[in-house]
């Protein structure tokens, strides 16, 4: 009898520990969100969105240039990664059996696991060194490289969800394989693919390491792709590791803006995915 009791007790304790581990993970999440919001909101004001950084010693100023910089960098990254990601995703899903498809799938997963700092060194090597200048393009290439595998794998997964009958219907009507994919299969999966792109953008907008020595930093407004550019993330890093109280405040404000952008994108994408799963593709 005592053995049964002991086994039951072990079971209860182990199950309890599993539940506790969920709590253990939720605590840092709550703590991070709490500090980002409470510290960030104190420093957030209109100037933050409209002004550029002020020199050391003066207080005030903002991160308008960094916000624009981050948006443009992510945009450049998407410009590079969306075509490569979507078309290679189509290849992986529509010619799934081929050896090339498995190789590309493996390459995409590998690329996804390459540390972002290494991608930064790569972009430095192929863009910054030849042109002898830090530039927004170099940052865009780094971010684009990171986006490719996310978009490619997502596109592949979504295309696989499109019912075979759609493909067969198009082919039966005499369409070529390419035409069937581009006019029937791809549009069916498009909402999901766009959602995937938004998710990839959200992830990429939060990247710092690949930008440190590609787009570098800039205290002034810049929309010229061949020039170094400020970004929200690098600016937060610079400010956070500086000794100035006012800069720390601004770093928190920057973090709040960044987290808001990232979370809103993720939540919207998540909601859209749920809805898509419920209605169209699966059917």
């Amino acid at each position, binding site marked *: 009898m005592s053995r049964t009791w002991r*086994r039951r007790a072990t079971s209860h304790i*182990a*199950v309890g520990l*599993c*539940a506790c*581990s*969920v709590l253990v*993970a*939720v605590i*840092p*999440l709550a*703590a*991070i969100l709490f*500090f*980002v919001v409470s*510290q960030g909101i104190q420093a957030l004001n209109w100037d933050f969105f409209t002004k550029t950084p002020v020199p050391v010693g003066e207080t005030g100023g903002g991160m308008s240039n960094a916000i624009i910089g981050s948006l443009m960098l992510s945009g450049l990254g998407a410009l590079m990664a969306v075509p490569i990601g979507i*078309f*290679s995703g189509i290849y*992986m899903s*529509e*010619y799934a059996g081929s050896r090339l498809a498995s*190789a*590309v799938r*493996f*390459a*995409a997963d*590998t690329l996804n*696991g*390459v*540390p*972002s*700092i*290494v991608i930064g060194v*790569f972009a430095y090597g192929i863009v910054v*060194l030849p042109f002898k200048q830090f530039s927004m393009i170099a940052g865009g290439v780094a971010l684009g*490289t990171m986006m*490719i595998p996310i978009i490619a794998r997502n596109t592949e997964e979504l295309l696989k969800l499109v019912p075979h009958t759609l493909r067969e219907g198009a082919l039966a009507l005499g369409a*070529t*394989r*390419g*035409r069937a994919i581009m006019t029937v299969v791809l549009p069916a999966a498009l909402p999901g693919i766009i959602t995937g792109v938004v998710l990839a953008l959200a992830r990429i*907008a*939060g*990247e*710092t*390491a690949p930008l*440190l020595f590609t787009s570098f930093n800039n205290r002034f407004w810049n929309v010229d792709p061949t020039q170094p550019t400020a970004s929200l*993330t690098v600016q*937060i*890093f610079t400010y*956070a*590791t500086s000794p100035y109280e006012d800069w720390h405040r601004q*770093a*928190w404000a920057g*973090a709040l803006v*960044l987290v808001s952008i*990232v*979370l809103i994108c*993720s939540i919207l994408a*998540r909601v859209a995915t749920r809805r898509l799963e419920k209605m169209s593709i699966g059917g």
Partner: protein
Amino acid sequence: MKGSRTGGDGGFRLFVGAFAVLVLAVVAAIGIELARESTLSIQKFGFGFWLTDVWDPVSGEFGARPFIWGTLYSSVLALLIAAPISLGIATYISELCPPALRQPLIFLTELLAAIPSIVYGLWGLFVLVPLVRQLEASMPAALRQLPLFSGPPIGLGMFSAALILAVMVVPFISSLAREVLKAVPRTQREGAYALGATQWEAIRVALTYGRTGIIGAIMLGFGRALGETMAVTMVIGNNPTISWSLFAPQYTMAAVIANEFTEAADELHLHALIEIGLVLFVITLFVNALSRLLIWSMNRQAVSRPATKIEPAKIGSAA
């Protein structure tokens, strides 16, 4: 599907195939480019680069052992913390929790993965590090004598880095472990229950069945931890030493690249940093490939060995 139309199909296949090849090319280009840009350091130091401890850009001496040490030590510590927690979460979500809680909990762990590394770093630097400093300061003197806890209480150091890393890899490991548990056939648990197992014993059966995949999930978390840059750079203290002490400021491969790259004065320094990047690339490549292989073989095993063959019909007909 062969016929007059295949000409058009071939063109399309070639078109999308070209983009697919591009993905392969990018991965190859990363390796080639890193190797090409680090020749100076590779030629000058050879393998000794990884065996010496002195990192002195001013005198042109570069030894990368402290960085390798810091990267491995911080990642292993992070996994020691994160692996049990992640498995607990995965088990709770997939086996134990009420269905209504499942989606919200998955969403919460996904949020952890969505928070940018720099924000973890900022929080680590201003919130976690002071807490760790207090913990270090309040440690009894007897314990401080141990090599594991030696050093002045500054807060910045290995322990803070490992904690932050652990929080960051939990969502990766737990979501993969969840997939693995999902692939474990129901009959495994039912069999255990039928033999009179308690809830935990049945879960242990499922975990044991999926152990290959779970090791794969932990390996993938390891790969993430190895390459994590910003958060670690901000809290590890950036001091190239080799020490067992949890409280000693140390350095990692990714952190030294992030800190010194733009300040590299001469080409040798730059090449030494890129060589560190090259090795980081190769290590993460290897770890990731291995983890994918493990998870893949686990899934294959689950598919090829579906529900164990219990056939109640036969029992019925025999009776």
